[in-house]
C-alpha cells in the first residue's frame, strides 16, 4: 500500500521491486541451514574474553550483583548469553544477588536458573539457594531504583522473591549496598540503560561492570569499553563466543549458523537499490 511511484524504465524498476520477494527469499533461506547445518567456525572477540575473565578472575567468595533485564520477547537474542554466563558463575565460588528491573524478569530467571528445571540448573552445580545465590524479584526500578539499591538494598527489597525477610537469609547478612559488592553484571535490553549503570554504579561507587545486552546495543556500550566497562556480550553472536570460551555449548551455535544465508536476499536488494540509484543518476 506504499504510495505508487513512477515506473518508467529499467532503473526505476530496479529500485521498485516488490520487497515481499525479498521477505520470501529470506524466510526460505532461514530454513535451509536448519535442515542442512553449515557448521562455520566462530571467532572469539576481545570484549567476550574480557567479560569471561572478569567473572573467573574474581577471588572465591566475592559478591556479584546481577541487575537482570531479560524478557521473553527478545530472549532468542540473549538465551545463549544467559545460559553460558550462569553456567560460568555456577562453576566458580562466587556469591550472587539477582534483582530484576523488568516485569518479565522473574519468569525468565525461573526459565533459565529454576531449581531442577532451568536450562542452567544451579542444583547440578551444587549451589544452594540462600547460601550461594539469592533472588530478590522485580521492582519497576528505573534508574532511581538502581540508585536506591546502591544505597540500601533493603529499601527496595525487604524480602526475597519468595517472601523470606532478607535478614533471615544467611548470604544477605552482610550485603546492604554497593560497598558490599565486588562486581556488577548488568543485563538490559534498552541500549541507553548502560548509562544508568555508569551513572549510578560506576561513577559514584567505582564498581567494576560487565554487561550483557542485545546486538544492537554494542555501539552504545562501545564508548565505555575498555575502561568503565570491563567486558561485554551483545547479541546471540557474542553469546556463542562465550559458549566457546567457557566450554558450555548451548543454543547460540545453531542460531549463528542459521543467520548465514538469510541475509543474502537483503544484500541482493541493497545492491539492486544502488544500481538503480546509480543508473538514474548517470545512465539516463
Amino acid at each position, binding site marked *: 500500500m506504499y504510495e505508487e511511484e513512477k515506473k518508467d524504465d529499467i532503473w526505476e524498476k530496479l529500485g521498485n521491486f516488490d520487497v515481499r520477494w*525479498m521477505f520470501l527469499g529470506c524466510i526460505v533461506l532461514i530454513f535451509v541451514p536448519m535442515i542442512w547445518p553449515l557448521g*562455520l567456525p566462530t571467532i572469539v572477540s576481545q570484549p567476550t574474553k574480557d567479560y569471561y575473565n572478569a567473572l573467573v578472575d574474581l577471588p572465591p567468595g566475592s559478591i556479584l550483583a546481577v541487575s537482570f533485564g531479560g524478557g521473553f520477547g527478545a530472549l532468542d537474542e540473549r538465551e545463549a548469553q544467559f545460559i553460558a554466563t550462569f553456567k560460568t558463575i555456577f562453576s566458580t565460588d562466587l556469591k550472587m544477588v539477582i534483582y530484576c528491573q523488568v516485569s518479565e524478569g522473574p519468569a525468565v530467571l525461573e526459565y533459565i536458573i*529454576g531449581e531442577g528445571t532451568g536450562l542452567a540448573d544451579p542444583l547440578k552445580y551444587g549451589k544452594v539457594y540462600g547460601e550461594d545465590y539469592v533472588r530478590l524479584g522485580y521492582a519497576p526500578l528505573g534508574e532511581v531504583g538502581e540508585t536506591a539499591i546502591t544505597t540500601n538494598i533493603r529499601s527496595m527489597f525487604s524480602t526475597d*522473591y519468595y517472601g523470606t525477610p532478607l535478614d533471615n537469609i544467611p548470604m544477605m547478612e552482610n550485603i546492604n549496598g554497593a560497598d558490599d559488592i565486588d562486581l556488577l553484571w548488568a543485563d538490559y535490553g534498552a541500549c541507553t540503560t548502560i548509562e544508568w549503570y555508569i551513572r549510578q554504579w560506576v561513577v559514584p561507587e567505582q564498581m567494576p561492570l560487565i554487561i550483557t545486552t542485545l546486538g544492537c546495543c554494542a555501539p552504545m556500550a*562501545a564508548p565505555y569499553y575498555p575502561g568503565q566497562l570491563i567486558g561485554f556480550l551483545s547479541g546471540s553472536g557474542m553469546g556463542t563466543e562465550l559458549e566457546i570460551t567457557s566450554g558450555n555449548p548451548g543454543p547460540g551455535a545453531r542460531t549463528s549458523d542459521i543467520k548465514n544465508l538469510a541475509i543474502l536476499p537483503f544484500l541482493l*536488494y541493497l545492491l539492486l*537499490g544502488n544500481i538503480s540509484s546509480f543508473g538514474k543518476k548517470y545512465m539516463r
Partner: protein
Amino acid sequence: MSFVKRDLPLIILSACGLMLLLNFFVPTDIGNVVKAELTTWTVIIGCIGTFLGIYYMTISQWRLLQQTKTTIQYFYFATIFGFMFLWLAVGLYFPGGVTSPQYLWLQNNLYRNQSGMVYGVMFFTLSSSAYRTFTIRSIESFALLVGGVIYMLRQIPIFPAIWPGLLPLGEWILLVPNVGGGRGAVICAALAALVVGIRTLSGREATMMEVQ
C-alpha cells in the same frame, strides 16, 4: 487556590530534585535515607498507576466496538479480555504466580512466540526501508552504507569466515568512528537534558507549569 494547584506541586518537584542533588555533592547519612525513601516512593507510585492504563485501554476498545458493532469486532474485544483474564487467572491461582510452571508454559510457548516475532517483523520493515534509503547519493549516505554494511557483515559468521579481516574492520568501525560520532551525540543530548533539568527544578519548565 492557585498556590495549591500550581505552586505547591512545583515546590515539591524542586524540593525532591534539590535534596537528591545536595546529597550527591555532600553525602550524609540523613541524605542517603531521604534518597532511598524518595526513590522507593516513586517506584510505589508507578506501581499504583498500572490500573489507569487498563481503564484507558478499556474505554478506547469499547469505543472501537461501538463504532462498528460487527461480530468480528466483538470477537476482538473478547480476545483482549480473554487473554488478559487467562493470564491473570493462571498467575493468581497457581502457587508461585508468575514463576509457576503453568505461567511459564504460557509465557514461553505463546507469549514468547508472539512478541518474539514482533521483533522479527522489524527485520523485514528495516530491510525494506534500507532498500529505499541505503543508496549512495552523497558522502554522508556513503558513510551510512559503509558503517552499516561492514558492521552487519561482521556479525554474520559466514562473512568473517570468508574474509577474516572483516572482524577487526567491524570492531574498528564500532570502536573508532562510531565512538567519535556517538560520543558527540551523547554529550549534546546530555547538555540538552541538563538544561531542561535545571529549568524544571527552577520551576520554569512550561510542560510542568501549564497543566490545567
